[in-house]
């Protein structure tokens, strides 16, 4: 595999080593990229991992969107590069305007860490290319602000344009239309609240996340061969 994956680290990010480790376990080559970096040249995919970027102060993602690396992420996305935001990374992508909608506090107003069922709703994204529509994955969730919301017009567009990527089978946080993940119009930018990197090792109870991250590596690898770094 020749693909190189950038895993962006903001101050307060905490899932970066988990993502790098899970990708490495699948044969991928992932590197940590500090939030002050202004270029993502040479990378074939970008992951914004979970955590509490800039302490989640003000609002999750509200400060991170101003980190220098986010301009590079936007350029990378505009050029069609695969970008995946996991949990806090999803929140950052919505705050940065790279994905529609917002993530508000969970219904019930409590942090939720558990394992839940996630249905794959489209295979047009780099994360779900190896799945089939209707596949149900068991993935960990771990968030306080995971309650996806958007206005009615946006929801209608997301449905019409096949941009709802994942739905919860047993909605744990009040998300509209059970949404656990969405993508941009082109399908190359994906945000999801569940943590696929936490489900890549049988010792930890589920390997359902490996199919998603494996798909991302496959797409990145194709890209690395097509576009010389």
């Amino acid at each position, binding site marked *: 595999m020749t693909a190189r994956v950038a895993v962006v680290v903001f101050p307060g990010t905490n899932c970066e080593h988990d993502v790098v480790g899970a990708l490495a376990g699948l044969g991928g080559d992932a590197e940590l990229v500090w939030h002050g970096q202004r270029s993502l040249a040479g990378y074939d995919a970008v992951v914004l991992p979970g955590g*509490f970027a800039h*302490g989640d102060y003000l609002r999750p993602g509200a400060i991170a969107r101003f980190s220098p690396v986010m301009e590079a992420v936007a350029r990378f996305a505009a050029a069609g590069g695969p970008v995946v935001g996991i949990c806090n990374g999803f929140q950052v992508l919505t705050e940065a305007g790279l994905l529609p909608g917002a993530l508000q506090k969970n219904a019930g107003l409590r*942090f939720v*860490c558990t394992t839940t069922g996630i249905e794959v709703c489209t295979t047009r994204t780099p994360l779900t290319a190896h799945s089939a529509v209707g596949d149900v994955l068991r993935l960990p969730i771990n968030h306080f602000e995971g309650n996806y919301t958007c206005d009615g017009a946006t929801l209608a567009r997301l449905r019409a344009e096949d941009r709802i990527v994942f739905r919860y089978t047993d909605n*744990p946080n009040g998300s509209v239309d059970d949404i656990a993940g969405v993508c941009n119009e082109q399908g190359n930018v994906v945000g999801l609240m569940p943590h696929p*990197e*936490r489900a890549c090792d*049988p*010792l930890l109870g589920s390997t359902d996340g490996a199919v998603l991250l494996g798909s991302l590596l496959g797409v990145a690898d194709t890209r690395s061969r097509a576009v010389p770094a």
Partner: protein
Amino acid sequence: MEGTTETGEPLHRALGLTDDEAVAIERILGRPPNQLELAMYAVMWSEHCSYKSSRVHLRRLPTTGPEVLVGPGENAGVVDVGDGIAVAIRIESHNHPSAVEPYQGAATGVGGILRDIFTMGARPIALMDPLFFGPLDDARTRWLVEGVVSGISGYGNAVGVPTVGGQLTFAPCYARNPLVNVLCLGVMPVERLVLGRASGEGNLAILLGATTGRDGIGGVSVLASAGFEDTEAGTDKRPSVQVGDPFEEKRLIEACLELLDRGLVVGIQDLGGAGLSCATSETAARAGMGMDVDVRAVPLRQPGMAPFEVMTSESQERMLAIVTPANRHAVEEVCRRWEVRATVVGTVTAPGPSGGRLRVLDGPEGPVLADVPAASLSEDAPLYRRPMAPPSDAAARRAQDPAALPAPDDCGPDVLAMVQDTSWVWRQYDHQLFLNTVVGPGADAAVLRLAAPGLPPSRRGLALSTDANPRWCAVDPRRGTAWTVAESAVNVACAGARPVVLVNCLNFGNPEHPEVMWQLSEAVDGMAEACEALGIPVVGGNVSLYNESNGRDIDPTPVVAVLGVIEELRRRPPVPGLVPGHAVVVLGDTTDALAGSRWAVERHGQRGGELPPFDGPAIARLLRLLVTLVGEDDLLSGVHDVSEGGLGVALAECAVASATGARLRGVVGHGALFSEVPGRVVVCTGRPGSVLDAAAAAGVPAAVLGEAGGERLVVEGLVDLPVADLIAAWRSALPAALDEPLPAGESG
């Protein structure tokens, strides 16, 4: 010189020092102390910092062993777990702050214990929180539970360290004085171990992290070393609670670990209780050196702070690094990248003929505001042999006989009343971060992979359990504590781990009450007996006294945590559960002793009787057997330690976990069903013959109780319940008491 307060009280008393202690300080200095010096002694000689009432007893604990790298007295205990990896472990209390301000009290408890661990050079990888509250039918208790759990969740999740287990106990004695203990475990390559020493004359003391504010002044003396008198639990003491900032702590962890990784510091020490006074005097004293501290250099959060406030503030998220002048700029560069403030506030000085001096200066060459022997703040603290006496009702309570309580016609309702799903608490904690959590909260022990960035590869695993049984310890603190140690060791053995070391947090009442000192002394003796019998050294501890409200002491609550090592973590170890068609076997001595059991205390209000004597050899045999059985592939399909609620609750929890019933016989009566004496384990197996043979070879009694399967849990003559009813009771117990909705998703 020392002055008085507005009410005319001598200043030393207002600061929490006795008249005798004030005289001792004057003798050490050879002159009366000034106000700053008095304030520094007051925090350092507080019960919380000096262990002045408990030190004389703690010396009786066994603290050495071949795997122990650092024993009690440092920031954390450190143990060699093999493969070039060391584990740092510590447990602490944050009881009083949590009673006053539950969110910040619990949050800063997490922050403080994390700093104790990364101070040693270890990356924190797991937290655990044993919690004790009053009954939930009280609105204030529900507020405390809500606040404490939110505080742990809010701080622990954001700082990025998973909370992998704990304990939840409700009893009336904690109603106004909840106990919030917090344990942290960290890992490091053995060679990175660092100690908090300020060696090398001319080296710089660099303060890292947050600014210093007025929060937490007198936390250790005003708050932690006195009980609560008014019924609203000391709301006037709220300003003595610190305020936490997990984002600052996260950056501090990463910056400090990088500094240690690159060998840029000589020594490092966290600022916890007693703040700068403690960190500067302890690092200097440990190295036999002195230190000059420029109080004006300390970055402040608010203007106009007096030197005594700067020196005793317990503002969170601060560390003191001792750095050679040559490395100063490299240290500042690392800190700049992590956005961590780094300020030179002092210099290590050579000792004089009478040892090193801690001097507080007003400006680099400014006037000397305080000048005391550095070691006197910690090492010369008073040592009390407080009077001890058994409680006056001890004999009368021992004479009670729980066996005489009326036997229930049907034990089902008792079982239903005692099952409880604790996931309402731990679903609020990130318990999965770092991809190490093989078995998380809710089982007998948490099981972790032994892995972290920068560690050598290892196939070993760790098992960790925190345990306490205040009901047993109220009946008999010595035997109760010994059995608590056994309980914790059996829990880690149920995960296939060999118990290696223990840390403890001794939560007791007012040490000025002779019966409390007697309880403490007895508990220490019980712990020493069990640890010696089982070969488990004590590598660290914390003592929390003055847990009382309105003059009533809590039940003695020694919390222990046993760390075990799994030689090879090839697969997920068995957890509580039943597999249809498999045999249900109970290992260990049959007992029907009910003293201190939940059945006797909670269901019948009887707090007396006599605990059986501790049987170390029997527990040691059981531990060895469990490690063998769990280590054999596919032999056990379920395993569960018998503890609170006895065999009845253990069987019910197995049934609930796998939504499978069982038909069992041979449990002779309600005593055998509800006895909690440690040393019994329920296993489910497809090969009962192999289990019985192994048990016989190990000298452990074992009996097949019956077979798993079906939709009812039946214990012949005692219990006959639909599993669905058990699941419903188990799931709803805590949410119903808290008036919370049942959670969605998986909780097991």
